[in-house]
């Protein structure tokens, strides 16, 4: 029964699949008493909110890393191409 409840909460959570897998894994490592506590809707919603915020933060930071590097590489390539044409 707690498993069904967990699956329902996970399906409603909007969390990414790898994050859902992680929550599922840790859920099964808990005692039955702890599982029931975690399935409290308000408490579970707090977990979901925190995980989603963390995921969004990580995504933004990863995108910044990629954007910055891609800009630098593109500029360097443009400079090199201009030099080649000038030569």
């Amino acid at each position: 029964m707690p498993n069904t409840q967990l699956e329902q909460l996970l399906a409603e959570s909007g969390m990414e699949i790898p994050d859902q897998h992680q929550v599922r894994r840790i859920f099964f490592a808990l005692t039955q008493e702890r599982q029931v506590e975690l399935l409290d809707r308000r408490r579970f919603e707090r977990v979901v909110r925190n995980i989603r915020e963390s995921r969004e933060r990580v995504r933004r930071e990863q995108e910044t890393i990629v954007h910055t590097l891609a800009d630098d590489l593109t500029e360097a390539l443009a400079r090199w191409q201009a030099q080649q044409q000038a030569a």
Partner: protein
Amino acid sequence: MADSNNKEFVVKRLSKSETLDEVHGKPSPRRVNKATRELLAQMGGQEAAETTRKLGAQIDAEKRLARLDKRSLAKEVTLPETAEAQPAGIEAFLNELEPEFVGALSAEVREKSGVDLKDFPAAVLEPFLALIAKSSQEFSALEAQHEAGVYEVTFDQAGAAKAA
């Protein structure tokens, strides 16, 4: 019996050191938060040991990344000297990095410049190799930190009723 011994061991080691890594015999400055420690202390022996192992694995992953970062930055990143060998050298270098990072970077570079990252002239790419390697590690470290955070926040909420 084995379970109660196990539990005692975990609780004793955690209360002494307050680090999960020391339970694994690996000293580390990384500390787990109070709620996680309390929850582990209240768990059954086998469960606590298993949970500790999983948390430890997450932390180990972060440390491995940190070590990898230092190693890759410490060694000078160079490409083969001959022009013929350079494309293969660039590809081999990119293959060593985090695939998700390489995928995202390649897609964005291709979109902005119209050139595939692996086809970049070595003269352009070479000054960036150390920065690319470092960025790949930072990209992975963010993911590892997030994963460790998922464990901690889930534990916190599972133990919130007892702590309150």
